[in-house]
């Protein structure tokens, strides 16, 4: 059992490959989290426009991309679009898929946050001469973010975990590298190593979240 799962020789051999993968996973996360967050902020700000011509298409957009498994979206971009002569490459596909998918999730979380801020806050800000957008960005959004911080963090954890999907389109992130090493060595030790690395990377965030969530639920 130890031979198969925690083979030291193979571990030493695979370590540089895994390490390179970890670096790329971190870089990828640093790219897709802000991308999704940016998309989410745009959607959330748009959701404050109550006009039906904005509201319903927006709701449809958000639900559409929340209903789509992110992997399906990614495969569609990566394997479907080239038939239309649009060869974007794995990296761009991952970026677009995350912008659309995680942006919708961030958007929903932030919209709930904005809804939780009393209307009096906008009125007070507008009464001092701030524009609608200024009131939203400087007065409402900061309070909204604070109110839904656990959900935002939880979503961020999910986004980082989702970067493992990039392995399917051959981006050399942690899981992809581990599978490469596995097929080179005919031994699952590199995948075990990758799992341990993921766990060590994300455990602090999980602990923090669990504390925050318990607190939030208790104050209901």
């Amino acid at each position: 059992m130890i031979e198969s799962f925690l083979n030291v020789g193979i571990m030493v051999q695979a370590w540089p490959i895994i390490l390179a993968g970890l670096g790329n996973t971190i870089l990828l996360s640093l790219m897709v989290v802000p991308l999704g967050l940016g998309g989410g902020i745009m959607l959330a700000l748009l959701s404050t426009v109550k006009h039906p011509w904005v509201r319903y298409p927006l709701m449809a957009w958000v639900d559409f991309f929340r209903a789509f498994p992110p992997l399906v979206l990614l495969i569609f971009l990566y394997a479907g679009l080239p038939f239309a002569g649009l060869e974007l490459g794995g990296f761009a596909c991952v970026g677009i898929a995350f912008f659309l998918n995680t942006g919708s999730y961030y958007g929903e979380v932030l919209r709930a946050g904005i809804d939780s801020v009393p209307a009096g806050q906008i009125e007070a800000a507008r009464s001092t001469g701030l524009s609608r957008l200024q009131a939203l960005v400087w007065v409402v959004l900061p309070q909204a973010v604070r109110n839904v911080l656990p959900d935002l963090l939880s979503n961020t954890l999910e986004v980082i975990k989702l970067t493992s999907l990039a392995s399917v389109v051959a981006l050399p992130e942690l899981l992809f590298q581990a599978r490469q090493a596995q097929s080179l060595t005919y031994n699952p030790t590199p995948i075990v190593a990758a799992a341990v690395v993921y766990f060590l990377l994300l455990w602090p965030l999980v602990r923090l979240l669990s504390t925050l969530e318990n607190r939030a639920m208790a104050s209901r």
Partner: protein
Amino acid sequence: MSNWDRFVETFFNARVMARYWPDIVEGLWLTIGLAALIVVTGLIAGLVLALVRALGVRVLNWAIIFVVDVFRALPPLVIIVLIYFGLPSIDIAPSGFVSTWISLGLVLMAFSEEIFWAGITAVPRGQWEAARSTGLGFGETLAYVVLPQALRITIPPLTNRTIAITKGTALGSVVAVTEILGQASSAVSNSYNPSPLTLGAAAYLLLFLPVVVFGRWVESKFAWRR
């Protein structure tokens, strides 16, 4: 041929769609079956863990917290790959279907345990005291007084989390499960046309759009009123 015709010919090719339509439907049923198995086993396991945690045995609780943390921290695809490619080297060879089921079931177990537990602790202490003061035992108080209230506040987060995890069934395609995405992908490589992917995408929408809308409804409906 105009651009539009070429676009339709590529992504909405009627001939290709008709040819691979049965495959996609087959994949749809498999996805539904897999999702149902994951939801039932994952939620039951999560609830059982939360109830065990309510007993307050310290060592047991540490073990539960650790297991939950592990399956919250690991990407589902990593767990699937680990089970599917890793276990055979100790002579257990679960199919792609079983690997996906176990992996996502464990993930749902972890998330739902956390949610159930938060719900249980959110019920005020006075509820326990009132029930115990009328002579109800620990189990009875949990079953009749605390759980009904806890479940109610857990329904919205639980619904959303369950939806998100069942969407992970698409990950099964990576380990050769012939669910929707698996069927669509192999149809694309057989037909050299992406129309089956369009069909597959439509199948996912058909399946999950109502669920997402339902989740939205649940969220507004079950906001807890005292």
